């Protein structure tokens, strides 16, 4: 191969690469950007294709309506409670268990691991689980969001793999000084596991935040509904807001006109916390996968 054609090859390669990257970027980013500009634009202009790059006919009516709606805030509060309490309990249950399973001298380690792993592939199914929750009187309580999911086997495996990489000399040295497993776990292993804790903490956090199936099946009380269920009512079941847009008899067209703007706004408002957190946690993603890559 001559030098020239080799360079030509490289140039074509770079060109294709560049085009692909720009294409991928646009496909992912544009819909997200569009939602943002649509949420502050006049709905009629949006639906007739006039809003493509910049917001037009700017109005914050959608957001005003959202801030007036009490259901959203109740849902927000519930979801925050379930998410933070849930994640705390997740870590409280998962980390010590993973630590124990990572200790080679722990005899029942293989057998217990098998018991945990089986649940990844085999489960009782929807109805038996439902009847169990009913039997335990967990339905219509906040605990149904937290207790049944307090240990996720995937995250447990990730944590175990991580603890296995801690040098064993560390424990031996601590044990010489009379350190118990419990003390070692709290005072030595935990401070060394910040990356791990942020990664599986994030996995748990996002799972709780997005959970709507649990509420769909087990929660009937309005005051316990998480944000996702309320989002479904607004975004998918077309329930117009109780206050504001629904006032009076001639509100039909009015409501229709603003319904979409409200929907765009709701999408933004409900995704905002994750978007704010995102830049801070992004750097841990790849680290997390490296930690978690299952060996053999």
């Amino acid at each position, binding site marked *: 191969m001559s030098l020239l054609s080799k360079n030509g090859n490289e140039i074509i390669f770079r060109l294709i690469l560049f085009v692909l990257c720009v294409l991928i970027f646009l496909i*992912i980013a544009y819909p997200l950007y569009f939602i943002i500009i649509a949420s502050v634009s006049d709905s009629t202009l949006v639906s007739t294709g006039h809003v493509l790059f910049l917001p037009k006919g700017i109005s914050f009516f959608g957001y005003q309506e959202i801030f007036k709606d009490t259901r959203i805030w109740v849902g927000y509060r519930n979801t925050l409670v379930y998410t933070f309490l849930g994640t705390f309990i997740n870590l409280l249950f998962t980390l010590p*268990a993973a630590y124990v399973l990572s200790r080679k001298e722990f005899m029942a380690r293989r057998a217990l691991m098998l018991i945990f792993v089986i649940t990844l592939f085999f489960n009782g199914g929807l109805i038996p689980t439902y*009847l169990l929750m009913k039997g335990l009187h967990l339905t219509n309580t906040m605990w149904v969001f937290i207790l049944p999911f307090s240990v996720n086997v995937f995250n447990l495996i990730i944590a175990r793999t991580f603890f296995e990489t801690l040098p064993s000399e560390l424990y031996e040295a601590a044990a010489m000084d009379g350190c118990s497993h419990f003390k070692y776990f709290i005072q030595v292993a935990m401070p060394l596991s910040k990356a791990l804790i942020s990664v599986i903490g994030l996995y748990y956090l996002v799972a709780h935040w997005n959970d709507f199936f649990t509420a769909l099946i087990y929660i009937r009380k309005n005051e316990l509904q998480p944000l996702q269920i309320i*989002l479904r009512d607004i*975004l*998918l079941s077309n329930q117009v807001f109780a206050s504001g847009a629904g006032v009076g008899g001639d509100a039909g067209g009015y409501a229709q006109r603003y319904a979409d703007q409200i*929907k765009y706004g709701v999408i933004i408002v409900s995704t905002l916390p994750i978007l704010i957190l995102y830049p801070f946690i992004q750097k841990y993603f790849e680290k997390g996968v490296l930690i978690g890559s299952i060996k053999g």
Partner: protein
Amino acid sequence: MIFPAIAVILIFNYGPMYGIQLAFRDYDFAKGLTGGEWRGLYYFKQFMNSYLFADLMKNTVTISLASIVLGFPAPIILALILNQIRRKKAKQILQTTVYLPHFISTIVLVGMLNVLLSPETGIVGYLMKLVGLGDINLLASTSTFMPVYVLSDIWQHCGWNSIIYLAALSTIDPQLYDSAKIDGASRWQTIRYVDIPAIVPTMIILFILSMGNVLGTGFEKIFLMQNALNLPVSEVIATYVYKIGIVSNQFSYSSAIGLFNTVINFIFLIAVNAISKRFSNMSLW
């Protein structure tokens, strides 16, 4: 220290397995789980003979196979592309962008599809009319449900799923690239002979796992995307189990269908794992 975790798994994962016997019994509201009369395989036969059986199986298998066929290679290709970007800043921006949709909840994603694809007020509907594609309602048509489901799924998760391949690519010894360069390999050839072989083990493991879930297509998204018009192609086993079980209280029948689903999945997993073990020496266990 491990006791709380064991307790949780035993109660909430193994507890329901005791309830599987419901699939073989008449559920009796007064007598509880074990009080009903033993009916053997009655409910399984009822399901297999029901007029819905063929449709449910067809929809479930079509949607999951399409998700695997299209969704499985997408993150691999994306990872290979990302891995080729030399400029650090550009790579970072693209990565940040492609991971982002993963954090959007299923409800919000389906909500986005609804507002964007709506034929009256959605921008996509408007643009389709503009280019003369007519006003097909993408969300309510039997022919477009599956493509919309699969493509939006790729849009949402492709980036996130590429992380694991990127991690695998990052473990490649830089010396391999150098020696390939000395041998005069073009960048196409390095992808072909260095990058791809390096991620094959990861690909196989993930492929086995996805085949083990072939009938377990995501309940949530399909359920949320369902409407009266697309129901003929969108009703899958998982949504049907929910409807007859939780909505219409036919506990035994619903349990039987759920169990049927789990067993088929399990058989798939074991079969694919065995095949892989035989031909590539790689397996989950």
